[in-house]
C-alpha cells in the first residue's frame, strides 16, 4: 500500500514535470519521464504500481496539456496493459535488455496511439490541430533509453533485486 501511494505521488510529480517544465526545455532535452518510469515500475515491481504511477501522471496531461486533446489517461491504461502482456509473455527475464525492449515498444505504442486518437479527435472536430509529438521521435527514444538504463542500474545497485544468486552445485567429491 505504501509503495502504491509513493507511486501515485511520483506520478503526480512526473505529470507536473511534463506539463510545466518539459515544454519549456529545448527539444534536445526531451525528458518525458512518465513512460520510462512506468517501465522501471513494471520491471522492478508490479503492474499495479505501474498503473498507479502512470495514470496519476496521465491525469495531469489530460487536464492541463496545451497540446491537442489526446486522451492520455486512456492511452496509458491501454499501453500498460500491452506492456504488461509483453513483460509477462515475451520479455520475462527482467534484464536491462528486457527493460530497453519494453521502452522501445512502449514509446512506439505511445506515439502511435497518440497519432491515432489525435487524428480521430481532429476529424471529429474535438481538437483544433492535428496531433504532433512533443519532440522528434529519435530524440524521445534516445532520452528514454538513457533514462531507463541509468534508472535500471541505480535500482539494481540500490535494491540488489536483479542480482543473480548463484550457488555452486556441490561436486560429487564434496559430498
Amino acid at each position, binding site marked *: 500500500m505504501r509503495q502504491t501511494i509513493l507511486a501515485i505521488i511520483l506520478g*503526480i510529480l512526473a505529470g*507536473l*514535470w511534463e*506539463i*510545466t*517544465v*518539459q*515544454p*519549456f*526545455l*529545448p*527539444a*534536445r*532535452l526531451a525528458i518525458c519521464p512518465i513512460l520510462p518510469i512506468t517501465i522501471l515500475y513494471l520491471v522492478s515491481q508490479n503492474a499495479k504500481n505501474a498503473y498507479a504511477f502512470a495514470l496519476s501522471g496521465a*491525469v*495531469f496531461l*489530460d*487536464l*492541463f*496539456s*496545451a*497540446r*491537442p486533446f489526446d*486522451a492520455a489517461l*486512456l492511452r496509458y491504461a*491501454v499501453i500498460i*496493459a500491452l506492456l504488461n502482456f509483453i513483460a509477462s509473455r515475451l520479455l520475462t527475464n527482467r534484464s536491462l535488455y528486457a527493460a530497453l525492449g519494453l521502452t522501445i515498444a512502449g514509446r512506439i505504442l505511445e506515439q502511435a496511439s497518440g497519432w491515432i*486518437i489525435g487524428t*480521430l*479527435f481532429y476529424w*471529429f472536430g*474535438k481538437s*483544433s*490541430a*492535428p496531433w*504532433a*509529438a*512533443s519532440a522528434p521521435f529519435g530524440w524521445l527514444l534516445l532520452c528514454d533509453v538513457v533514462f531507463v538504463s541509468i534508472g535500471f542500474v541505480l535500482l539494481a545497485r540500490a535494491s540488489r533485486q536483479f542480482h543473480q544468486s548463484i550457488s555452486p552445485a556441490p561436486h560429487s567429491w564434496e559430498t
Partner: protein
Amino acid sequence: MLNTHRWFFVIGVVIAALLMLLGGLFRPFSNLLQRAALPLVRLASAAFTPAANSISELSSQKKKEADLTDLEKRISSLALDYTKLQSLEEENASLRAQAKFLKTTGYDSVGARVISRKIDDQHATLLIDRGLNDTLEIGEAVVTDNGIYIGKISAIQERIATVLLTSDPSSRVAAAIAGQNKLIGVLEGRGTGATVLTFIPSSENLKRDQIVVTSGTEQKIPGHLPIGIINDVQGKPTDPFLNAAVEPLLSGDRVLFVSVLRPTVLGPSL
C-alpha cells in the same frame, strides 16, 4: 477462449470510453479535477518554469548572437534613412494610442500565468490559468505586459484557456501597418515562429522594417496592437496580391505572464 473474451471486453471498454470522451461526458468530472489540481499546477509552474525557460534561453545563445548581428545592421540602416525615421515616428504615435487604449476603447485586461505550452512546426499554443470563470471568451486578444499582441484564445474551459499564438499554422489575424488606419492583409502563422502577411493588394507600397499592428476589424481584438516587423516583401508588381514575411516583435514561447483583453461590458458587475 477466455483470453479472447477478455481482449474483446478490453477493446469494447476502450471504444466506449473514446465515444464518451467524444461526447464530452467526462467534462463535469474533469472540471472538478481541474479545480482541485490547479493550485498545485500554479505552484509547480511558478517554481520550475522560469528555470526551464532560462535553460532554454542559454541553449539558444548562438541564435541570439546571429539575431543581434542582424538587428545591429538594421539599426544602422534605420539611423541613415530619414524616411524610416518617419516610420518610427508613426510607430511612436501608434504606441501612444496603444498606451491609452485600455481606458479609451472599452477593454480591460485580465492577467494570467502561462502554465504549459506546445511549440513545434505544427503548433504554437500556450495554456493559461484563466478561463470561463474569469468571463473570458474565445477570440479575445492576448498581449504581453508591454502591449504586444501574441495571439488569441482558441479554446476555453472553466479555469484554463488555450492561446493560439500568431505563428500557429491555423492562426489568422487581420493586420494593418502602424500609422495607417486601414486593413492591409491577413497575418497567417507558418509554424516554427514564422508569420506571413498575405492578401496585400499589390498597390500597397510596403517596405522592410514597417511595423505591423492589429487592424481592429475583428470582433474582440482592438486595433493598434503591435505584432511584428516586415522582413521581406514577396511578389511581382503584376501579381494581384503580395506577401510579406513578418518577424514577430516577441516570440510567444518565452512568455510566462500575459494579459487577456476583455471587452469591459463582459467584466464582472460590481
